[in-house]
Structures are given as structure tokens and as C-alpha cells.
């Protein structure tokens, strides 16, 4: 009932008698209310049916969602997951944001949280160790990456090792020189290349034929130039 209708009602009652007007008005209002409520009652009946179906659908969707989330959480718990740690953390946050009210999901979330926290701690420790690493240790790690890329079991494994190896360098375009022969002070080189190209070369050719001869670090302890020599 809008303001205009109320005003009309008031006017109508005023037209009848002034004294009775209050009662009349309230009666009318009451009647109107009854009519309204009974009318609404008819609508309520069909809406309930709809709501039930909707509820059912929602429950089903929720169950499916929970199932999917459980799978995702289990995948995050899998040690063979090829996602990077930050990717995993983002995936977990997305799941947490869903605020799913399910005991199993909550339990899995806790498990994943613990696992990722452990992984994060290990990585940070590793990073600390890497940045604190002596140049020699870094060189050794680089050598291991070369082997890992050349002998990788799959392309994605090789690509992961390439990404990790690249983190040791100032940039993917860091200079790589390959010495093909050395006599006295004269060195003969192959065509200069970049670390990214060289790592891809190892991946494609599946051979690690050069040894690390000299490494130049920048002030942040990253490799800016690499000299290799034929084994």
C-alpha cells in the first residue's frame, strides 16, 4: 500500500463521519491486511515448492563442489604435484575463500595448510642457504641443474629444472661462452650464447658435454657470466 492509497483511504473515511472515522479506517486497514495476507498465502504455497527444489539443487551443487574441492586438496597433498609452491598456496587460498562448511574439507584444509607451511619453510631455508651459499656451492648446484636438464625424464621436468637453474642468474640473457680449445693464453670459443638458450639446448639434445670453467657473479651473488669448457 503506497502513500497515495493511504491518503485516499483517509479521505474516504473522512467523507463518512468524522467521529467514526478512526474505527472505520482501522477496520478497513484490517480488512485490507487480511486480504493481503491471504493473497500472500496463496503465493507462499507455490514458492515453498520452488524453494525445496532449489534447496535440493543447491545441496547437490554443494556436494559436487565439496567433492571437487576434496580432490583439489588431495592433489595439493600429493608429493608428485608439478605446481610450484606459490601456485599451490594460491589454490589453497581460493578454496579457503569458499568457506565451505564441511568437516572433511576443513580437515583436509588443515592438512594442506600444514604441508604447505612445511614446504614454505623448507624453501625459505633453502633460499637462505642458496643466497648464503658460497660461490663454489652455487657452481655445484648449477652443474647439478645441467645434469638434471639433460637427463630429465620428461619435458616438464626439464622445464622445471630450467626455471630453477635460471634463478641463479641475473637474467635469462646472461652470457654463456663455451671454450672449444685452450692453448696458452689463447682461448677459442664457440658462438656466444645465453643461459636460456643453452639450457634449452641441453633439454633438446639430452647431453651435457661441457664443464663449468669460470663463473662471474654480480654483487647480489647472481651469475652474470658463465664460461664453459668442452669436457
Amino acid at each position: 500500500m503506497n502513500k497515495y492509497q493511504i491518503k485516499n483511504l483517509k479521505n474516504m473515511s473522512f467523507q463518512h463521519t468524522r467521529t467514526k472515522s478512526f474505527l472505520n479506517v482501522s477496520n478497513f486497514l484490517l480488512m485490507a491486511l487480511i486480504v493481503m495476507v491471504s493473497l500472500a498465502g496463496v503465493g507462499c504455497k507455490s514458492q515453498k515448492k520452488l524453494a525445496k527444489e532449489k534447496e535440493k539443487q543447491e545441496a547437490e551443487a554443494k556436494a559436487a563442489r565439496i567433492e571437487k574441492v576434496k580432490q583439489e586438496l588431495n592433489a595439493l597433498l600429493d608429493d608428485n604435484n608439478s605446481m610450484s609452491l606459490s601456485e599451490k598456496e594460491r589454490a589453497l587460498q581460493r578454496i579457503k575463500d569458499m568457506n565451505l562448511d564441511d568437516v572433511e574439507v576443513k580437515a583436509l584444509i588443515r592438512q594442506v595448510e600444514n604441508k604447505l607451511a612445511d614446504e614454505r619453510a623448507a624453501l625459505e631455508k633453502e633460499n637462505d642457504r642458496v643466497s648464503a651459499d658460497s660461490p663454489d656451492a652455487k657452481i655445484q648446484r648449477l652443474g647439478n641443474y645441467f645434469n638434471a636438464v639433460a637427463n630429465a625424464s620428461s619435458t616438464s621436468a626439464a622445464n622445471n629444472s630450467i626455471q630453477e637453474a635460471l634463478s641463479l642468474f641475473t637474467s635469462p640473457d646472461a652470457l654463456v661462452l663455451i671454450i672449444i680449445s685452450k692453448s696458452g693464453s689463447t682461448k677459442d670459443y664457440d658462438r656466444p650464447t645465453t643461459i636460456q638458450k643453452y639450457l634449452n639446448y641441453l633439454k633438446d639434445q639430452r647431453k651435457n658435454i661441457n664443464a663449468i670453467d669460470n663463473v662471474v657473479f654480480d654483487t647480489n651473488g647472481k651469475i652474470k657470466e658463465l664460461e664453459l669448457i668442452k669436457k
Partner: protein
Amino acid sequence: MKSLYKILFVILLSSSIQVNLFAQDEVSPERKQAIDSLALEKVKDLGKYISIIGNKDTEFSEANRVIERALELFADGSQMGVSSLSRPDVKYYGVREYFERLMALNYDRVTIQWFNIQYISDLERQPDGKYVGVITIYQRFQGESDDGLKYMDTTKKDITIYVERKETQIGGRIIGFWDVLLGDIRVTETTT
């Protein structure tokens, strides 16, 4: 008399410059061997790229990436000249076309096997100052389809190698390097 000495001096000087130039051209056997094995390495790299390209399991995008890498090994305009026992006429293909044909081959399995033998010629100087050589290798190609069809051949590949001494300036210092590029390849079917 004085001018005669002058002339003599100039002749002597110019001849000594000549000698020096030749001395610089002379590459020691050790360095030559290093260049030989560098060139051979490029040939082996090409072999690996060829088997990746010819492998049906290699994804299209990956094969294309590898074709680009393989083409980086070649001097511009390099060709493959192919002849078979049944057709001695040489067919000429651009290297890119050759790779693309290789990729399009409809075998389910392609095996490229290498004979553990190669021959590397002397490096000869050509008029533009670059060195040129030829590496000979032998290869067996086997293509097999799921319906049992098989194709096999053994080929001798004579591969041109261009070797050029180049210098580049990196971070203020000059790096001298050998630029080794592959050139034309003659492919002959053999009976072995």
C-alpha cells in the same frame, strides 16, 4: 742509391707483412681438431633435432620450435640434394622445406639410427676468407606405420661446414670465436 735502399726497404717490409698475414692464417693442428669436433657436434645436434622433428609423438608446436632451432645451425639458403638408388637424379630442397616434409611424414614410428663413423675433410679457405669443410656421416632411416608398412633406407650424408673466425665485443672486451654453420647437404642412398 738512397732511393734504391728505400725501395728495398719497402719491399722487405711488405714481404714481412705478407709472411705475418700467412702466419696468422695458419691454424695449429690442435686448434683445427677442436674446430673439427665443434663442427661434428653441430652435425650431431642436427641429427637429434631431425629425430625430434620426425617423431610423431612430438607435438606440432614443439616440432616447430625445434625446426627453428635446427635452422639456426644452417647458413642462409642451404639446400639438401637428395638421390636414391632407384632415382639417381638429385632432387633439391631448401632446408626448411626438408624439415617440414620430415614433420609431415605419416609414419607412426620413425627411427633414425647412426653409424658410428664419420669423416671430416680438411678445412679449405675460400675467397671470402671463410673456411669450408665437409663432414660425411651415415644414417639409417626407418619409418613404420601401424598397419605394418615399413620404409627403410641407409644414406650417406655429405655435409658442408662453414667456419669463420669472428670477434665480438662483450662488456668492453673482445671475444674471438669460431662461427660454425652447416651448409648444403648431399644425401645419397647407399647399399649398406
